[in-house]
């Protein structure tokens, strides 16, 4: 119980289940009331009375998504008013609400609530689905019950009700994906590797065989013969869903530094077993020792290139594939790539110097100009107006 309390506090940013779905309507005599609720009695009368202003609000707030979080209950609703001569006050007010725990995020339910309300509006307009049985709402009760259980279990539901089919799906709200640039390298997360190729969309099907943690976007586009903007859009979409992770391009001239998470490698048994397995050069030989792997990571610091470390530690003798080692490190944030930013400090930049603003790193400049890193390097070395910053 105490564990639960620690986990679920307000603002913990977790998602929770839908606890209850209820329909509230404005009764011409009795005023605002809950006319149907699944499960019965989840929202008590006290709570409803305190918040009914926000459930059946003023006309100006009709068709707005309203979320009210008071008294340890979070209610997401979408108040609707239907004008028609049929009704006692020439209008029918209702609001279909989802109730969640007060600590849970509820953004992902907003479109669902809105869509369901719109289905119900349509059904009400066509058949009087909501208003027909004053006291007996068994049909609605079963409908809401099914939506509740389906959405909580499968996050998706399809229900045929009379002549309408209701399609609902909860789409998780994730932070925006990063912008995908030419020089970035996508890496497919291991849990998605087993998915058969046919089940991906068409663009992904073309691209996926070239995603190996080594190829960069521009190269994938060239090899898969897919337009580069399409590749970027596709990868960005995959990155949004966490299918791929974007890493900096691997070069032996790269410089890396270890992060605070490196110590996890010695503490997290799963992580280090996974690491030793992943970085093995030859899977038939015994996997490299933790000490060797750790030593490799620990040697990474400013000013020491991957090439130097390889020369010093000869990882291949210890059955370590240094490329996989770097990929694993980047993937689990054990290490961070330190990029090189040329900065032009003269007065009038011309030609390529305009790119040396300090906002583009070496890889980006290489991709933009189509020149090799060595070429750029030479260019910068000979130019006294350019300094280089590593960060």
């Amino acid at each position, binding site marked *: 119980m105490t564990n639960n309390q620690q986990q679920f506090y307000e*603002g913990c*940013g977790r998602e929770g289940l839908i606890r209850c779905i209820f329909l509230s309507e404005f009764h011409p005599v009795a005023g605002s009331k809950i006319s149907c609720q699944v499960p019965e009695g989840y929202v008590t009368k006290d709570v409803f*009375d*305190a*918040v009914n*202003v*926000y459930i059946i*609000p*003023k006309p*100006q*707030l009709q*068709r*707005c*998504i*309203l*979320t*009210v*979080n*008071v*008294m340890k209950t979070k209610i997401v609703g979408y108040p609707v008013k239907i004008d028609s001569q049929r009704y006692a006050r020439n209008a029918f007010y209702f609001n279909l609400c989802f109730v969640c725990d007060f600590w849970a995020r509820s953004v992902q339910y907003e479109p669902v609530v809105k869509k369901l309300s*719109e289905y119900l509006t*349509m059904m009400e307009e066509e058949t009087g689905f909501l208003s027909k049985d004053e006291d007996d709402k068994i049909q609605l009760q079963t409908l809401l019950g099914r939506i509740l259980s389906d959405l909580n279990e499968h996050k998706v539901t399809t229900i045929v009700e009379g002549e309408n089919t209701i399609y609902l799906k909860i789409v998780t709200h994730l932070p925006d994906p990063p912008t995908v640039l030419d020089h970035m390298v996508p890496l497919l997360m291991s849990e998605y590797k087993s998915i058969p190729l046919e089940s991906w969309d068409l663009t992904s099907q073309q691209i996926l065989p070239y995603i190996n943690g080594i190829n960069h976007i521009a190269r994938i586009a060239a090899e898969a013969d897919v337009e580069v903007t399409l590749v970027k859009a596709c990868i960005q979409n995959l990155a949004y869903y966490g299918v791929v992770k974007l890493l900096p391009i691997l070069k032996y001239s790269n410089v890396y*530094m*270890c*992060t*605070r998470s490196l*110590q996890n490698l*010695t*503490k997290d048994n799963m992580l280090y077993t996974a690491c030793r397995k992943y970085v093995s050069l030859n899977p038939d030989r*015994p996997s*490299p*020792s*933790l*000490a*060797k792997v*750790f*030593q490799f*990571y*620990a*040697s*990474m*610091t*400013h*000013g020491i290139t991957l090439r130097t470390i390889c020369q010093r530690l000869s990882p291949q003798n*210890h059955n370590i594939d240094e490329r996989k080692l770097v990929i694993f490190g980047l993937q689990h944030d054990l290490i*961070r790539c*330190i990029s090189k*930013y040329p*900065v*032009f*400090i003269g007065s009038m930049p011309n030609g390529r110097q305009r790119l*040396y*603003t*300090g*906002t583009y790193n070496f890889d980006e400049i290489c991709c933009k100009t189509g020149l090799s890193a060595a070429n750029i390097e030479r260019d910068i070395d000979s130019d006294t107006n350019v*300094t*280089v*910053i*590593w*960060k």
Partner: protein
Amino acid sequence: MEVNPLSIIIVKSDSKGDRLLFRYPYKVETQNDISSESKRRNPYSILINDDVLQNAQQQTSNIHNGQLSGFPDEVLSTLFAVKSELCNRKFELKVNDVRFVGHPTLMQAKESKEDTSFILINIVFALYAQASYSIVTCYYELSKKLGYALVHEENRVGYLSEEMNLMVKTHDEIAAVIEQDRGKSELEAFDLVLERSTLAQCLKSIYHDLCTTGLLNITINQFVTLCFCLPQKAHQFHKKGVIVEPETIDRCLHSLKPYHGMLLLVNFAELLDCVPPSGALMLLKLIEVYNPLKSLQNMASDADLPIDHVYELVGHLVYWAKATIIYPLCETNVYVIAPDAPLYTNSPLVEKFSTEFPGMSLFEVISDFSLPTSIGHLTTPLQQPARQGILAQMVLWMLQHHLLMQLHTYVQFMPNDHGECDEISTEYELGPTVDENHSEMSLDNDDDINASSLLSMSSQPLPVPNTSHRSNTEDQFSAADSTVSDNIVAQPSSSHKSNFSMTQSASLSSDNCDSLASVEDEDKIKELLNVFQEQDRAAVRRIPAASNPEDLALMVKLWQAGYFKGEHHLEEIMYFENLRRSQLLQLLDKFRDVLIIYETEDPAIASLYSQS
């Protein structure tokens, strides 16, 4: 952007009903963007008006040009004049993309005639719905504080009743005027309210302060002082576009140690407005002894304050974005460019730097820190001391602007794992596991290496790794020379072991050193080594320095204290174990076969940097 409030609203509810008293900003730019309404992707696209599902016209956004829009005053007042069940607790309501947060405060009106009348006052902040939970909480706290301040002033002099009556009267006056001639608009009522009411002026200044600095220091009714800081905003002043969460600051402050130092980010004059007058004295005491070269502990003892108070003061200053945590500046500190340093041409920092340090270019100075560099490295004793002073000033400036990050050295104890493909160590690995006789042989072999490598270590700081057999034999030669001249502590002890076990392998050189002390040493070493697990013990024993009880004792002590788990940097070990840097470095070097050292940032300090 999403940190700023959209609007601040004050609503009252009493026996005379609910009313929106004031909101700020109230001048909404009403110019309709015609272009946005009929925005087409291209000139040929058709505007589809009749969508089947979205037949009714609906509002999906209530934000217009960074201001609240689309809510008439009456709607707001009914929304915020909450039922009594919802009073004195957090009130949160989200409408489309606007989140309203407030603390409805119920209080008794101070009236001489009737004692039972209650006033509900709700000061609500309208925020961007995307604003993080911590931002919402901060605004909630502010609303609560304002509520308490108003309760206090109401109880004292009936301030709120007075202000309320004044505002209501003004609204009624204007309404009456509008009734008479239809030329005037409602907007001017707020103008007049703002002119007359001190509470409205106060809310206005709160809104402006929140939008500009995120720091508040206001006095309500010239009596109650209210200090408030919105850290997510305040820290942007020093680092644009980066939101520092209060949680991060808390984490930083929790890991604060006495050896940390403080670096002020603002002038002395700007410091005092963040503390209530009662705390100012203590702050002054601390500031008098402030020096970025001093640790917190030194400052505490200089200022004659308990260290806990210093922590609290520093914590407060950090929260208010007036100071940051550093490791006290010294020659040995290693700095690199921070990963998120905003360094680019046309950066305002470039100009700021050259006005601060005339004739210097930020890029030239900072490019020295592309590689991990210390102030000691950048200066030579031959240079005049003034140059070093300027350099220190520049480093401080760059630290203040979060351009530099300090690297610390961490130590991880890691003997070679048992039974792994390590060609060199396999022979040694066998040593402790095979029968007694064999182990003595290998131990004896070790003895010679021990003696020699200890010597070589004392003479040259970085000898080649002593791993192959070829180097063993070389070392044996040198050992032969040295045993005569140098009567080192380690040698007798280790060689004694061979004597003790009564085998022929006892070397001649050790005969003369056999003494009671060495027996003790031997036992001590054994005892010390016992703390390690089997396979680790073997690895440690193989290290030459392990036969020196002093070195081993220190090593074991630090290991047992948990310093070799990569969680404590050298400076921390030095501080808590009262060691000198050279002592510690020597020890690490002697035991480098089982210790892996690496450089990274101090998590306490780095948490204030964004990890990109």
